């Protein structure tokens, strides 16, 4: 028995010593865990960037995880809690709780900061590469910088197929009536007017944010008005919006759009199956990749019959980079973001992804960049970036076109407007 134990002990010692010899060089290599959300052009760019980064920093290996946009906050929370992530792509940093909002929960990015899970980036040199207004508006909390925001996007525009419009003798619609007429003209030929990636939920209504914008160009004031009671979802002005949303859902959107996946919708537009595609500027790269020859344009959603009201592009600050406060790979994480923020690399990123840049030296010198350039002076942060629902508000308190048939249950604009206001009012009353 003793001999057997001695033999086992000797084998164990040999294994341990061999392991330590072979493990010594490998221990030098740092694995940096990076989390991003699914956006095909961005994923493609990041894969190429990571390869370049690993070449420049041979001691750092990048382990990048890609998750669906809807799951990003869940995965961020669980991986940060498990201290299993170093660099994170954070969404929606801009929409904080406003002073007039009572009894609401802080948005998740604020919760993460208050829990001490995001690193203070204030003194890091790469932050200076981004314009000061963006750093202040979409990256700072309590005077400290926790995120560098990588770009703005518009989501209230419409892609339109110039060739199909020309064939019908139509020009790009600049008013609501022109849009309605254009859709009727295509419908006469059996061509669906618009599509959207309704399978993912939000794309079915995101285009209609332009409709809200044409009625309420000051979206921050809209949210404050709804909270304070000076505006109602069922007042005369809003009712016009609901009427148009009904037409958008029932007459403009193609039947079956609810089954189209978010990343398949640009392909459907690019294939010429529909004449228009209401959606964000981030889809441009996918459209160009699928159909490089397609002649398309991008216009603000013409929700009003006064073309002057339709000059605004609504959007948001999109994703940004943050570093986990407890990362054991602090230097590698900073090196990673420094490299990413290098103006040349950032320019490549903007060109690949189609974001409106947040570094002052970068230019969106792409097709979508040229399309949105005339409207950039009129770029405004959209409604949903300000909106925080009061506790107790019902699920219809948000103005989404997808509540109308065939995607939802409502068929009458007044009924839905009353329901939206009642659901909101219920939350406001619960505060009293």
């Amino acid at each position, binding site marked *: 028995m003793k001999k057997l134990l001695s033999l086992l002990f000797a084998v164990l010692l040999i294994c341990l010593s061999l392991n330590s010899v072979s493990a010594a060089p490998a221990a030098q290599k740092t694995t940096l865990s990076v989390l991003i959300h699914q956006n095909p052009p961005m994923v493609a760019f990041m894969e190429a960037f990571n390869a370049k980064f690993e070449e420049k920093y041979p001691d750092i290996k990048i382990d990048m995880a890609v998750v669906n946009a809807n799951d990003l906050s869940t995965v961020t*929370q669980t991986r940060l809690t498990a201290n299993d992530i170093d660099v994170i792509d954070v969404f929606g940093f801009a929409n904080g709780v406003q002073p007039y909002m009572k009894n609401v929960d802080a948005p998740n990015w604020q919760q993460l900061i208050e829990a001490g899970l995001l690193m203070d980036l204030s003194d890091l040199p790469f932050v200076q590469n981004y314009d000061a207004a963006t750093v202040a508006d979409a990256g700072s909390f309590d005077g400290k910088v926790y995120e560098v925001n990588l770009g703005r996007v518009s989501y209230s525009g419409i892609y339109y197929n110039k060739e199909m419009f020309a064939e019908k003798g139509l020009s790009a619609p600049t008013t609501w009536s022109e849009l309605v007429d254009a859709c009727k003209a295509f419908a006469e030929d059996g061509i669906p007017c618009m599509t959207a990636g309704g399978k993912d939920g939000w794309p079915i209504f995101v285009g209609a944010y332009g409709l809200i914008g044409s009625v309420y160009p000051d979206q921050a004031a809209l949210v404050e008005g709804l909270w304070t009671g000076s505006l109602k979802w069922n007042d005369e002005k809003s009712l016009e919006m609901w009427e148009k949303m009904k037409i958008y859902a029932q007459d403009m959107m193609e039947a*079956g759009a609810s089954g189209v996946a978010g990343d398949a919708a640009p392909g459907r537009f690019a294939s010429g199956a529909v004449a228009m595609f209401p959606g964000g500027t981030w889809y441009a790269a996918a459209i160009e990749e699928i159909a490089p020859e397609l002649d398309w344009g991008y216009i603000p959603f013409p929700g009003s019959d006064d073309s002057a009201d339709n000059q605004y592009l609504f959007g948001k600050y999109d994703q940004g980079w943050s570093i986990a406060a407890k990362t054991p790979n602090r230097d590698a994480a900073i090196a990673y973001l420094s490299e990413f923020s290098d103006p040349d690399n950032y320019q490549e990123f903007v060109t690949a992804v189609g974001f409106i840049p947040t570094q002052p030296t970068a230019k969106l010198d792409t097709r979508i960049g040229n399309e949105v350039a005339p409207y950039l002076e009129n770029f405004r942060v959209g409604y949903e970036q300000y909106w925080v629902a009061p506790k107790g508000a019902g699920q219809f308190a948000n103005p989404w076109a997808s509540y109308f*048939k*065939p995607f939802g249950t409502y068929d009458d604009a007044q009924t839905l407007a009353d329901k939206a206001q009642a659901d909101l009012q219920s939350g406001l009353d619960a505060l009293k």
Partner: protein
Amino acid sequence: MNYYFGRGGAKLIPYLLLLPGVAVYFLISLGPSIATSLYSLTDATGIQGAPIRWIGLENYREFLFMGQASRDNLDALGRTLIFCLCVTVIQFVLGLAAAVILNQKLRGRNFFRTLYFMPVIYGVVIQGLMWTLFLYPLGGPMANLLRWFGGRSEFLGGQPAEAFAWVIVVQIWANMGITMMIFLAGLQTISSELYEAAVIDGAGGWQLFRNVIWPLLTPSVNTNLTLNLIGSLQAWQLFMILLGYRNGTQVLGYLIYATGFGQTSGSVTTSFRQGYAAAASMVLFFLVLAIGLPVQRFLRRREERILG
């Protein structure tokens, strides 16, 4: 039956043998359950390092009584019960019918047993993907079939009631195989002599089923009913994969997941509210208890009455 483990310290052996199992049970089942009940009385976010405040029954008040949101929650609770009833009854009946038919000496019965059981091994994601393609409204098989009859539908993305009904169909399709296999196992424990004796006594098909098969299947009936009830009350994954977070379709299980983990639609930011989600979990727990316990009691008494 008595087990003998010796005298003195040896008497502790059975308890020591039980210890690992009990420890695992505490660690992965009872412990988290107790923690959930405590969390439900706090404003915990689930974020490591975030302060946790004791807020008493506030989460329950908000979930059950605060504004339209609480009425929406109660609607979700109602949908959970409808889902449970439909799934339990239909899956039970179909599973039993399939088991009885496939217990006969039929050609190709192994093929059909495999076919019916196959969805069980796919996993929820594959199941969801298959049905998403099958119900694709722009040229999927079901859309084409409907078009032949002049109809059209958005299926999973359309009217909430229709989308909800499709999830019931998928849940039954996905799990009927288990129900069938449990019944098949039960059927194969019934001695062939009993069948023969009943046939000699002149029993027809229905009498054979009613007086021989059904009573002797009692343990399988109990197992299936219990599994179907609890499984359908707690279901949420198929809702997430097939429908996402849509008004008028949520059940309690999905509501809990979405609230607890701040699930978002696109970039619309939400908060992490694990204390509130824990309160919703406790409501679901009491619902399962309120339905599960009387049913269990009824089934046990029935089993004692029939099988002694």
